[in-house]
C-alpha cells in the first residue's frame, strides 16, 4: 500500500490571499509615506535654494541661512546626551538590577511618566521654573569658571540659555534611553549573571562582565534614539531658549544659537511666500540629519548583532 501522493502546490485560500495582501499593502503604505515626506519637503523646499536674501533673514544663500541653526541643533543635542546618557544607564541599572524586585516595576513606571509629559509642558516648566532656578548657578559659573569658553558669560538674567535647553532636552531623552536599556539589561541571560556571582564577583563586576557586554549594541541604539529625539525636539527648546541664531560655544550667555526645529515653529505662523519655503527646506535638512543618525544607529546595531552570533 503506497502513501497518497501530494501533488502540486497546496491550494491557496482566498481569505489568506486577501489578508496577506492587506497586510502587505499596509507595510508598503508606510514606505510610500516615508518617501512622501522626502518628496513633498523637497518640492516645497526647493524654491528656497535660490531665494533672494530678503526671504532668508538677510543671508546670502540657503546654506548660510541654515548653518547657524544646524550648529545650535547639534550643540543642544550634544549637551542633552552628555547629561542624559550616564544618568539613564544608572536609572536603568537601578530598575533592572539594584532595586528590590517588588519595587522595580513601579520605579520603571515612574520613569515612564517622565516620557509621558508632553514637550510643551516641559517648555512651560523650563521657562517658568528651571530657567529662573538656574540663574544663580550661571552667575556662579561665570564668576568662577569664566576662563572656560563655555561659561564666558555675561550670564543670562532669565536663565533662557542653550544650557537650560540642553538640560530640559536631557530630561526628555532620559526616559527613552532608560526604557530601551533596562529592557536589554533585564534580558541578559540569568545563567551568565549567576555564574559570575558564583565565581565570587561583586555585583558591579557581574554587571561589567555579564550585563554590559551583552547589552552594548542596545545601549548604542538607545543613545542614538535619544539623539534623534533631542535633535528634533521642538517646543521645549522654542519656549525655553531665548534664541538669536548666532554661532557660539558660550553656553550661559544672553545670545544663544537657535535650533532648526525651534526656529521653524517660532517663524512659521507669521511667515508667507518664500519664507515658508525656506523653513520647509530647513525642515528637510533636519529630516536628512535625523535620517542619517538613525541610519548609523541601525547599522551599528546590525553589525554588533552579527558579531554576537
Amino acid at each position, binding site marked *: 500500500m503506497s502513501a497518497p501522493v501530494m501533488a502540486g502546490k497546496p491550494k491557496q485560500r482566498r481569505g489568506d490571499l486577501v489578508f496577506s495582501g492587506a*497586510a502587505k499593502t499596509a507595510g508598503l503604505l508606510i514606505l510610500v509615506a516615508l518617501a512622501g515626506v522626502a518628496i513633498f519637503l523637497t518640492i516645497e523646499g526647493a524654491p528656497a535654494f535660490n531665494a533672494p536674501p530678503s526671504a532668508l533673514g538677510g543671508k546670502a544663500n540657503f546654506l548660510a541661512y541654515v548653518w547657524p541653526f544646524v550648529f545650535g541643533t547639534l550643540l543642544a543635542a550634544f549637551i542633552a546626551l552628555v547629561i542624559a546618557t550616564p544618568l539613564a544607564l544608572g536609572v536603568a541599572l537601578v530598575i533592572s538590577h539594584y532595586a528590590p524586585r517588588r519595587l522595580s516595576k513601579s520605579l520603571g513606571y515612574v520613569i515612564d*511618566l517622565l516620557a509621558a509629559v508632553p514637550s510643551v509642558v516641559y517648555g512651560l516648566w523650563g521657562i517658568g521654573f528651571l530657567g529662573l532656578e538656574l540663574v544663580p548657578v550661571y552667575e556662579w559659573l561665570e564668576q568662577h569658571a569664566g576662563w572656560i569658553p563655555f561659561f564666558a558669560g555675561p550670564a543670562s538674567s532669565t536663565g533662557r540659555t542653550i544650557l537650560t535647553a540642553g538640560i530640559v532636552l536631557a530630561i526628555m531623552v532620559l526616559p527613552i534611553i532608560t526604557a530601551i536599556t533596562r529592557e536589554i539589561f533585564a534580558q541578559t541571560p540569568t545563567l551568565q549573571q549567576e555564574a559570575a556571582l558564583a565565581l565570587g564577583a561583586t555585583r558591579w563586576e557581574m554587571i561589567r562582565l555579564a550585563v554590559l557586554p551583552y547589552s552594548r549594541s542596545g545601549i548604542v541604539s538607545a543613545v542614538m534614539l535619544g539623539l534623534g529625539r533631542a535633535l*528634533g525636539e521642538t517646543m521645549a527648546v522654542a519656549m525655553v531658549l531665548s534664541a538669536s541664531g548666532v554661532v557660539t560655544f558660550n553656553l550661559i550667555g544672553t545670545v544663544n544659537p537657535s535650533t532648526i526645529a525651534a526656529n521653524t515653529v517660532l517663524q512659521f505662523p507669521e511667515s508667507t511666500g518664500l519664507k515658508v519655503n525656506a523653513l520647509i527646506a530647513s525642515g528637510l535638512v533636519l529630516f536628512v540629519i*535625523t535620517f542619517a543618525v538613525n541610519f548609523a544607529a541601525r547599522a551599528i546595531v546590525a553589525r554588533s548583532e552579527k558579531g554576537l552570533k
Partner: protein
Amino acid sequence: MSAVAHIPLTHPRLPRWAPWLVTAVAGAASALLAMSIGWGVTGWAVAAVLIYTVALPAWSRVVENRRAAKDRLLTTLVWVAFAIALIPLVSLIWKVVEEGAPALSAEFMTYSMRNVVGEGGGIYHAIMGTLVITAAAAVISIPIGVMTAIYLVEYGGRSKTARTITFLVDVMTGIPSIVAGLFAYALFVLFFGEGIRLGIGGAVALSLLMVPVVVRSCEEMLKLVPHDLREASYALGVPKWRTIIKVVLPTSLAGIITGITLALSRVIGETAPLLIIAGSTDSLNLNLFNERMQTLPVFIYYSYTQPGVPPSFGQERAWGAALVLILIVMTLNLLARAIGRYFAPKTGR
C-alpha cells in the same frame, strides 16, 4: 599543612547597617557644614551625597578590599543617578499642580475663548479639538500599524521587503514632530493653496508619528506569541488568516492595546505639527475639513507666550491647560496598564 589552615575562608565585611550609619554621619556633617557656611537645603543635600559617596567606599576599602569598595561606590552612584532623574519629575508635577489647580473651574472646562479678553474663558474648544484630531489620527494609524506588524511577523519573514519596512519604520520613529508637521503642510498646500490650516492635516501629521510606535509595539507583542499555538492551529486545519485573527491576535491583544494607548498618549501632547498645520483659534471647531482647530498643547503655547494684557490671566490659563493635558496623558497611561492587565492571557501562574 598548618600554612593552609591559616588562610581565612571569609574576609572581613562591613556590618549590614554600615550604609545607614554613613547616611546619618553624612547628613549630620553636611548639616554642620551647611549651617556654618549658610547654605540652603539644596547645598545640604548635595554635600551630604558627596560625603556619603566618599566615606562609604573609603571605609569599605579599609575594612574589606578594593573590589568591594568599588562595588559600593558604583552602587551609590547608580542610586544617585536615579534620584537625580526623579528631581525634575517631582518638581514639574508639583509646579504644574501648584500653578494650574487655581485655574480649574467649571467655567474653565466648559467655555471656549471666543470673545474673551482678560479674565475668564476656558479650554473647551481646545479639549474638543485635541480629542477630535487625536481620534482621527488613531483611525488612520491603528489599522495601518497593526496590519504592518502582522505582515512583518507572520508573512514577511526575512524577505527583502520585510527587512526594508522594519528598517524604515525604525527610521520613522526618529522623525522629528516638526518635520511631520511640515510634511502635512507641504502635502495640503499642493491641493488647497498657501496658508492652509486644517484639522485633518494635524491628524495626518500625528499619524505619521503614531504609526511607527504602533508597528514596533505590535511587532514585539506578536513575536511573543508562542509558535506552538500557531502550529497547533495549523495542525487542526485552520487557515493562516483565521489563525492570526483567532489565535495570534487574541493572545497578544493586551500588549497591542497597551501599545496603542501609549502611542496615543505620546501624540496627544504633540504641539509643533499642530501649530503648523492645524493652527490656532479662539472658537470651537469640530469639523476636521474646515478651517483652523484649537488643540490643548497649542493653546498652552500661545497662552503663555502671547498672554495678552494683563499677562497674568493668560499665563494662569496656560498652567491650568497644562494640568488638564497632563491629567489626560496620565489617565491614558494608567488605562493602558489597566487594559493590559485585564485582557492579559491567563498563563496559569
